[in-house]
């Protein structure tokens, strides 16, 4: 597997193609819950807790919307600067959306108290969420700032790209219902399909190489 190193020249087109949808969708994720109150005054459609709740929901949808292409691009067979750049941008914007989700859950719903997080979510889920956030952020720092990637960086990145979607799978497909489960299934199919494709390509390459070696 090729390591996606940080020597990049992100083009304006690449940045536009990822940042613009990210900015628009994040704006929507944060403001749509306000809309009933702003547009339909005098209706008790929601309360402040519900407002925060919807922001956490919409921001995790947005996280997954960027996580899916990031995963596909990461595991896609072959390598190209363009793919690397798109991966990094999707990986980055997915994390930023996750940070917003993290802020509303940990910072607002659980009042910034880890004790409250563990009490409400349980040890496994709470630890897993915190690890997701820390690992993802750590890998992004490496991806953006480490110019020459060592083997361990590559290994941890592969593991991160397996572990993080695995936790999302458990949360979205196993535990949750509704739209987020649909996103979880799409994510699962996309990643498994990409890995399968990668496996088949590699196998095909080996088969092509083998006769000449004989």
């Amino acid at each position, binding site marked *: 597997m090729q390591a996606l190193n940080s020597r990049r020249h992100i083009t304006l087109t690449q940045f*536009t193609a990822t*940042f613009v949808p990210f900015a628009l969708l994040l704006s929507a994720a944060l403001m749509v819950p306000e809309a009933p109150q702003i547009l339909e005054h005098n209706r008790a459609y*929601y309360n402040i807790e519900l407002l925060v709740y919807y922001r956490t929901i919409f921001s995790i949808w947005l996280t997954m919307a960027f996580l899916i292409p990031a995963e596909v691009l990461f595991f896609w067979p072959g390598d190209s600067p363009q793919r690397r750049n798109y991966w990094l941008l999707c990986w980055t914007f997915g994390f930023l959306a996750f940070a917003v989700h993290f802020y509303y859950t940990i910072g607002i719903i659980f009042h910034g108290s880890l004790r409250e997080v563990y009490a409400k979510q349980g040890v496994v889920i709470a630890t897993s969420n915190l690890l997701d956030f820390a690992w993802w952020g750590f890998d992004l720092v490496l991806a953006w700032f480490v110019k020459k990637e060592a083997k361990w960086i590559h290994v941890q990145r592969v593991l991160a790209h397996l572990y993080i979607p695995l936790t999302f799978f458990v949360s979205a497909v196993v535990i949750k219902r509704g739209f987020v489960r649909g996103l979880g299934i799409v994510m699962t199919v996309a990643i498994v399909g990409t890995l399968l494709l990668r496996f088949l390509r590699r196998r095909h390459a080996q088969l092509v190489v083998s006769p000449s070696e004989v």
Partner: protein
Amino acid sequence: MKRFLQIAAICISALLLIGVFVFLFMESRWAKPRHFEKHEAFLYGPTGTELMPLAVFKVLPDMFPDYFQPAGKEAGDWIDQFGFNRGQPGVNEGLPLGFSITNYRPKSGAPSPVAFVGFSCSMCHVSQIWRPGKDPVLVEGMGNYSVDFIAWVDAVRSALLNEDRLTVDSISEAYEKKFNQPLSFSEKAMLRVWLPGTRKFFKDNLPKYDEPFHGLAARDSRLMPNGPARTQPFRNLIRIVLDRPATSGDNAFCKVPTLYEQGNRVWGQYDGSVGNRLSRSVLAAIATGATIENLIIPDVSNGVIGAVDYTVTLKGPRYEQLFPEEAAKIDPAKVERGRQLYMQYCVSCHGSRNTQTGKWENGQFTGQVVPIEQIKTDPERVNFRYNESLPDALYAFFPDGHPLRPKREDIRPGPAGTTRGYINQPIESVFARAPYLHNGAVMTLAELINLKSRRTVFYRGANVYDPIDVGLSSPAQPETAIYYRFDTSMRGNSNQGHDYPWAYQGPGWNQAALEDLLEFLKTMW
């Protein structure tokens, strides 16, 4: 060109995102948490009943003098004409007592960049006693006997429904004219959201609430059957909870209750239908515009709880504090004879003050609901159409787990009783509870104890207190400030019943003994 479009798209998206974050940051600072002490909560605390932006509240009466000064400009401002208690300059924006200011939007309780005005407990539960020949005094806890709240609400509704005269531009113009400064950007923006939304709300609810009255019509007892100091306590709950108009046969008029020493009673409402102080206040707040959503905002719920707590030990006034000259003339011998009569005929239902401990001691039957057939006062309050179905609906109105959901056993009719009647309550500072009976149909204590015959027609408003007969005096003809004709022959207005110790000039009636009793009641606190 492509490059230009890409840069433009990035810039616009970035600006939008920055704008959203700036908005969220500002929004988080609009409604700063505020802690109210119990007394402050009672006077100014929020109850989730936000109605209109403060800027609108300040100019609405000026824009609609025909609605808010129905007796003419020379008869005083809207505060005088609707019987509110005037506030102090510099305190709570100088608003009359009973209006709270928050940065929460109506209904949802979402933070607002501009201040909104709602109601606080002191609107109805602080009264001015107009003393003859003296300055009036404010009595905390006393049911406001002057406030014509329902008529004022009708004036507000009339103004809001007037699409020709009430617009964002006309409000802005009136504000600038009054304060010599324009409305801020956020005030104007909020007006553009609030006005159409609120107007739509009132329009949509016209089938349930009916067309409001305004001007002199709002003072006409043939059109406005409540009058000063009275509400129909469950009418709005029927509208909100049952989604019914509550017009069919609903004449359950009640005077605004007095709230001295609430710790002395378990069940509230005149019919003893709600058994928890907080639930009573929560239901009252919902009836005046609060929602189950905004009541759980910490500021709001703390305000309501603080105000409720304040009334637990709130002492009523003493007669000698308010009427020292008259108190000096009271004959102690008559008081003692009156006390003995009270202990013979009244104490078992109402209890009495232990002068040694200073505590009110309930009687044998205090807290019991006396069946309407026995007490024989006006039955409308307990015979309204939805009396039996409302408790279950109220209970179901709150979702499971709602922190303010009343217990089902705290609402009657229900597991705790089904008797239709009126509850025997303690009568601390009984002299400062006028008018009397649950519907305010008896003006003085002298009439209530049947020392004097009960008036069948009188006028209500900012009545002067009568320290001799103890209660409200009434002019023979309506006056500017005492305008509302109260006819006890109208449905829901009966002044009959509660013939204790004796019916007027009936068997056993003893004028001298009743005069003694009245003297004792003056001294009761």
